[in-house]
């Protein structure tokens, strides 16, 4: 079982990121060290992608079916996206938070493995399956980066006793593409559902929660656009929106409405 390899991949993943983080906080002006800070996380990420590729070929289907499998993709994208944002902003806290977040999701997978079979029910055998789930995972990862940025901004705001506008701008710059991908994922899901079941929207609990997440970010975008002075409210709302997102993704099955969802994985 390839799945067991995840232990090794996890250790290497954490090792690379951790080394990068330590170097980052050592503050030495050394060209090689600087390169290492950038390339270690990338190596960690490529390793994880190779693992996903191996899993894919062993399962003979895209590993997107169970919660544990989607967490793998999420780790990859969070790690990749925080890395890209780091390249642009050089934000140390973001580097660290991105590392912690992607490692935590891998750790959850190690503690909670869901060994799964190859079996894919006929409705999932659709060309829409991969783009629908992958786009959602990328979007969730970008919005996680947005949430981490706003968290950093919130801490800075308290420390400096003045609002950290730069973090909010950065966060909103992530919210736009994140929200756009959320829309695309939702639209693809709707088209697929129409082809598979004849309904583009059936108010299934997962769909309802996904819509709610979408509305929360929609409100963030419009609050920011129409009332740019309401920055504290915006920070609060960005945090809240991410909580709704996490409930959509991980928490549905704990709600009384969620028990019969076709989207409860595994």
């Amino acid at each position, binding site marked *: 079982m390839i799945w067991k390899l995840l232990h090794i991949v996890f250790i290497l993943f954490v090792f690379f990121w951790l080394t990068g983080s330590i170097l980052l906080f050592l503050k030495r002006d050394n060209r090689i060290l600087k390169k290492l800070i950038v390339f270690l996380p990338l190596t960690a990420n490529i390793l994880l992608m190779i693992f996903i590729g191996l899993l894919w070929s062993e399962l003979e289907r895209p590993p997107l079916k169970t919660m544990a499998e989607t967490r793998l993709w999420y780790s990859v994208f969070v790690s990749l996206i925080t890395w890209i944002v780091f390249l642009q902003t050089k934000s140390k806290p973001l580097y660290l938070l991105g590392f912690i977040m992607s490692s935590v999701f891998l750790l959850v997978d190690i503690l909670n493995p869901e060994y799964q079979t190859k079996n894919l029910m006929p409705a999932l055998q659709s060309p829409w399956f991969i783009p629908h789930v992958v786009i959602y995972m990328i979007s969730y990862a970008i919005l996680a980066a947005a949430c981490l940025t706003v968290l950093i901004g919130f801490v800075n705001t308290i420390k400096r006793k003045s609002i950290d506008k*730069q973090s909010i701008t950065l966060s909103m710059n992530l919210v736009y593409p994140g929200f*756009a991908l959320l829309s695309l994922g939702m*639209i693809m899901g709707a088209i697929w559902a129409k082809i598979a079941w004849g309904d583009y929207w059936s108010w299934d609990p997962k769909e309802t929660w996904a819509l*709610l997440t979408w509305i929360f970010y929609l409100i963030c975008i*419009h609050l920011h656009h*129409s009332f740019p002075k309401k920055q504290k409210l915006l920070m609060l709302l960005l945090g809240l929106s991410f909580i709704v997102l996490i409930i959509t993704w991980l928490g549905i099955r704990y709600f009384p409405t969620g028990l019969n969802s076709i989207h409860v994985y595994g």
Partner: protein
Amino acid sequence: MKLNNRNIALIIPLILVLIGICLQFWLGEFPLHLFKFPVNLIVIIQLILIIIASYIFLRKNKIILFLASGYAALSSMLLFAFVVIIMAIYPQTGQISNILDKLGFSNIILSWIYAISVIYLLLSLGTITVKRIVPFKTKNLFFFLNHFGLWIVLAFGNLSQADKVSISITVPEAETIWYGYDKKNNYVEPDFAIELTKFTIEFYPPKLGLIDNNGNLLNPKIYQPREIIKAHSLNIINNDVYVIDLIENAIVINDSIRRVAGLPEKTYIAVLQINTDTVYLQNGTEFSPPVIYEIDQNYKLVILNPEPKYFGSEIKLYTKSGITNEIHKIEVNKPLEIGNWKVYQTSYFKTPEFKGYVSVFTAVFDPWLNATYCGIALMFIGAISLIFKRKISKKEE
């Protein structure tokens, strides 16, 4: 309290919720069926005309100014969010057993609050869209795609529900059926009949599973079901299990294997060597009980029923224009278009009385689908453009 825009934006949703609750009490659920064609089309055209006309003639009117502002946008989104939150946390059973159900909470999409929130959204979204596109500037194109696209989806997606018919048609193999039942179990005759000439199903290889004394499958963390593969060794709770053979379409009778041609349901026999014993296992069907093996007093080894990998129907169609001998295929994810209907392969089942399979189709009549898809297409392009939208941080500060 001062009546400034902010307070109005907060009060309006409250008032609308109250109105919705009152209407729900007096009139019961929202009469969606009154909005069948052409009423829904008239309503949509009226809405468009009202929005455009009021924007042209009442541009300075306080209400119109408000509707075209960010206040109304957030206010209407807030109300809609409230409705969706109810839907997300309150079970949508459709039954009425307490006061909240009476307010429409258990069937929100047919409640007055939902209808009112959609109308409020359509009004503010519509007014804003018109404001931004007159006069037209290219830089507002993507704004238009996002907002007008959503307007179309909201308007047609919701009002078309009145015309939409979705029926379930159940056709046994070799029979012809010309009727079905809708979601409320009413008898409906579409203008075609389906003869099921052939039903095809394929299964994934069967799996071994462990069940406890109550017949429940063990939590996968304790024991993960395993595919049964010939000549494989497994270790199951400290027992050495070796798969000698896997036989399809056979059943176990009195400790011996009988191969039966044309068994009505898929059966498998696994011939196993467990420690030193040879053991037969067989999955259960309507026609023959399962054969299981007791590993110890707590756990039993079973063959799980195989999961379908593919199923689809080959049908002949009888329409008003006559019969053709053409064979059509309907599969999961591959519906068939028949006039204004689309027919989907939904599921299948077997009954003891009947030898073949019974195929279950869903036929959907959704005349506004293309209009909704137009809106979805606009939103799709709008969303792609939004990926590249940035706030420039330096200019702002």
